[in-house]
């Protein structure tokens, strides 16, 4: 063992061919490290393809919990000859490059440690079936690696026995493959490497989970009963998680299920079903990404305007258009916030990790029913499909699901005059009824056309504008109801702040730590929901320079902030008319005069025109 040994701080990367069984093996490795109590973070970088293309898996191992991605690889397990060249370039000086030396290669880098293991040969010797020869290559390199970086073999064994518990033969065969890899290292290679791992205790009360698994489970805990969806990467596994858990936890004695999962014919249909089910009093959701959001936007506008609860998970991927379906981005912020034509605004939630996906999945239904409007949970591929180490999921037995303002039969009888769209409480949120509640009371007509307080059709512009105003008031009500931002004041005196949301949080924490160590204090706010809480206005007003970190080109969250926080653009005064009638000059004159008369500052800016007409 060299004196330069360092522990639990390295980036490990696997380069494979997809469809070769490597994904399971690599996940297995991350899990073993997790069980050793070491903080890890794993990223699967896979192609939009089923078999034969390059795929990578990165594990950041960091005792000091700096768990954002990092360029520059310490140990590269290069199992795909097609990408050797690019893979070896990523290895840091003094790093290690492990490859399948069944075919020897000269890599022309002498600043790194190149290890050849003849994996294909080892497997050809050990197995006769061609598919086993293929598949076990993954386990063999895992075996080798376990010795090279020091993964506890007992942990591995336990993990294998957990996984193959009921299938001892599979267990044995996997152990055998591991041993092949270990044996080769023992006999041929100096081990362990300088960068290695050792047991730690950082993962007490932690779990390893991806966001889609957590969100699907959250929807089960939320009491959702209808999931309608159309397959699309990277959202598919969210519905699969819901299905798996619901089918297991909600099975009745007669073989029926207290849930319905419906694969729709497309995204329009998927969201239409979710709207229909919510309208009819079930908790229903859909999940999609990218193109699906665009296709759903007409229906999202209907739900907004007819005030139907709706939960929609958008697991964002690389856009625009079909874009990069297997890469992560945060580029649907604007298209979701303003989804649909006309004056529409949607409630957004921004989970930062799988743990928050679970809670937001639950709360999203509460918000959707309380506010009677679509709630879009903006996760992304990084959160949704990668395994993260997070706090374990908690459940408060006293938690009560908030079904919002729904009138039951008795309440309907006591109500003086039920009007579906009346603002009875002054918070902009009307009362609704579920079909079949009462034989004579509470029926109303739901429509996407303009309507009066009773749901009746109207083309009266004044009533239309009043409805739009109430919807805006309702939206404002959301500001205090929804998750508040997380604010960390690193320096009470600094005038510099940084804002982020979603999956970039780990990188922010790491960055702020780094800057702190250089004596630079920057205050941090993580946005968790739109409409924006007043605290967000305050944070922005209290700082003079604010960085906004986003994973998109168009600075979409910044746009949303300047859009919604008037103090930022205070010199622009809006004059708005939206009753559907062509504008009159009198309306304008009145509005402008009001401003001129009431605001002394503005008054002082007046100068006479060149010619007086």
């Amino acid at each position, binding site marked *: 063992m060299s004196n330069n040994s360092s522990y639990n701080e390295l980036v490990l990367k696997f380069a494979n061919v997809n469809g070769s069984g490597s994904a399971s093996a690599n996940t297995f490795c991350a899990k073993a490290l*997790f069980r050793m109590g070491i903080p890890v973070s794993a990223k699967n970088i896979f192609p939009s393809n089923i078999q034969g293309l390059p795929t990578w898996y990165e594990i950041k191992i960091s005792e000091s919990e700096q768990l954002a991605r990092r360029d520059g690889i310490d140990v590269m397990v290069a199992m795909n000859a097609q990408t050797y060249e690019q893979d070896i370039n990523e290895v840091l000086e003094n790093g290690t490059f492990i490859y399948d030396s069944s075919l020897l290669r000269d890599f022309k880098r002498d600043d790194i440690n190149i290890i050849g293991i003849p994996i294909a040969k080892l497997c050809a010797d050990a197995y006769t079936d061609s598919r086993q020869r293929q598949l076990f290559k993954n386990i063999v390199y895992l075996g080798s690696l376990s010795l090279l970086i020091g993964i506890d073999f007992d942990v591995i064994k336990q993990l294998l026995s957990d996984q193959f518990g009921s299938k001892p033969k599979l267990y044995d065969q996997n152990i055998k493959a591991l041993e092949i890899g270990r044996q080769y290292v023992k006999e041929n290679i100096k081990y362990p490497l300088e960068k290695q791992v050792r047991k730690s205790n950082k*993962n007490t009360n*932690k*779990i*390893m*989970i991806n966001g889609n698994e957590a969100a699907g489970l959250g929807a*089960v*805990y939320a*009491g959702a*009963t*209808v999931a309608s969806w159309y397959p699309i990467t990277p959202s598919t596994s969210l519905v699969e998680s819901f299905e798996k*858990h619901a089918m297991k*936890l*909600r099975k*009745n004695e007669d073989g*029926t*299920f*207290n*849930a*319905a999962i*419906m694969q*729709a*014919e*497309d995204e*329009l*249909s998927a*969201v*239409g*079903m*979710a*709207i*229909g*089910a*919510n*309208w*009819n009093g*079930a908790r*229903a959701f859909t999940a999609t990404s990218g193109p699906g959001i665009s296709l759903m936007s*007409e229906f999202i506008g*209907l739900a907004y305007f007819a005030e139907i609860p709706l939960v929609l998970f958008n697991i964002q991927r690389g856009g625009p258009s079909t874009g990069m379906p297997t890469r992560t981005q945060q580029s649907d912020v604007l298209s979701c916030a303003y989804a649909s034509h006309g004056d529409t605004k949607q409630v957004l939630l921004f989970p930062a990790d799988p743990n928050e996906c679970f809670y937001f999945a639950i709360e999203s239904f509460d918000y959707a029913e309380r506010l009677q409007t679509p709630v879009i949970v903006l996760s992304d591929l990084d959160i949704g499909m990668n395994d993260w180490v997070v706090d*374990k*999921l908690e*459940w408060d*037995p006293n938690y009560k*699901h908030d*079904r919002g303002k729904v009138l039951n039969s008795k309440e309907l009888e006591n109500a003086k005059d039920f009007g579906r769209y009346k603002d009875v409480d002054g918070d902009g949120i009307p009362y609704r*009824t*579920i*079909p*079949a*509640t*009462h034989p004579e009371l509470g*029926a*109303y*007509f*739901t*429509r*996407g*056309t303009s309507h009066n307080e009773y749901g009746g*059709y109207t083309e009266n512009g004044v009533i239309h504008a009043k409805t739009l105003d109430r919807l805006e008031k309702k939206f404002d009500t959301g500001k205090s109801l929804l998750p508040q931002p997380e604010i960390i004041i690193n320096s009470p005196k600094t005038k510099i702040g940084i804002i982020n949301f979603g999956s970039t949080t780990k990188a922010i924490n790491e960055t702020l730590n780094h800057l702190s160590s250089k004596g630079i204090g920057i205050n941090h706010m993580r946005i968790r929901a739109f409409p924006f809480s007043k605290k967000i206005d305050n944070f922005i007003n209290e700082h003079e320079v604010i960085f906004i970190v986003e994973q998109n080109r168009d600075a979409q969250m910044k746009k949303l902030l300047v859009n919604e926080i008037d103090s930022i653009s205070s010199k622009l005064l809006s004059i708005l008319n939206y009753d559907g009638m062509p504008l009159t000059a009198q309306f304008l004159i009145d509005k402008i005069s009001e401003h001129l008369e009431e605001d002394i500052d503005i008054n002082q800016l007046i100068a006479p025109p060149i010619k007086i007409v």
Partner: protein
Amino acid sequence: MTFIKKPIFRHPSLPKNDLGLTYRDYEGLVSTLCAGCGHDSITASIVQSCYDLSLPAHKIAKLSGIGCSSKTTNYFLNQSHGFNTVHGRMPSVATGANLANRDLIYIGVSGDGDTASIGLGQYCHAIRRQLNVTYIVENNGTYGLTKGQFSATNDKKSKNKKGADNPFGAIDLALMAIELGAGFVARSFSGDKEQLVPLIKKAIAYNGFSLIDVISPCVTFNNHPHSTKSYDYIREHNTAMGELDFVPEKENIQAKYSEGESVDVTLHDGNSINLQKLDGNYDPRDQDKAVSILRKYRGEGKVVTGLLYINEDANEMHETLKTSTTPLNAIPMNDLCPGIDELDKLNKSYT
């Protein structure tokens, strides 16, 4: 025809059904469709059917898309929840609603534009799932609400209000429904209440997807050169003025004919259609027969009406999905939420 509220006065001597309700109790708001629109006749038949069946209106949900036809859900069953969704997408909303509560009766109303053009995909897939809905297409071969474009059910030979030929062939929604596995497929005529009301009643009683494709003449579809002098005058006048903005008031077209008989019905536009009623011996359980009879009469330029096909063994959507017999929207949150112990187990599985 008017937007004045219907008087709520109910004559005490009106007949009552088993629930003690009168026909009036099943009505909706006053129609705003054109005088003489076939859709209004269908509305009346729906009211009649629900009254006859003594259905509790609040246990019915009525859904539609967008169009003159789709507006009609507002003109029947005031005590039912109604949902005018978006154009062509009613089937998905109805599917979701039905998933949430399998115990309600679902009546879906659509137009030929709504179903055969923008909504064709959803229509086909709702059928494939055997959604338990009574799906009524108020088929006038035109886009009424957007003023008379051709729809995809319009026969190739016919002309639109501007005299232009319909360029493309008609989609036969009934034939399509049979092919896709709909359990109940019928065709009728808006003016034939005697046929339509029993069909609606059977369709409502049927457990699965039931289509009634109802030919429903549109008054604005008014351009045939062979009509009366005065009519020609109006048409010429409209043309000269550059806009079709005079819609003369018309009577609903009625048609009375018996099983096995055929009848020529002259539409508002002077065109006529030949309706052929299935005879009493026709066995609607034979799918091959249904397909071939539809194809045969279509070949002869005739429209065959009646119950074309019924599959008494089809599994409706919930049976296929094995959803709980209790409506999903009626299961208490406590039964749905697995609670803390399960979560502990799950947490373990994530380590």
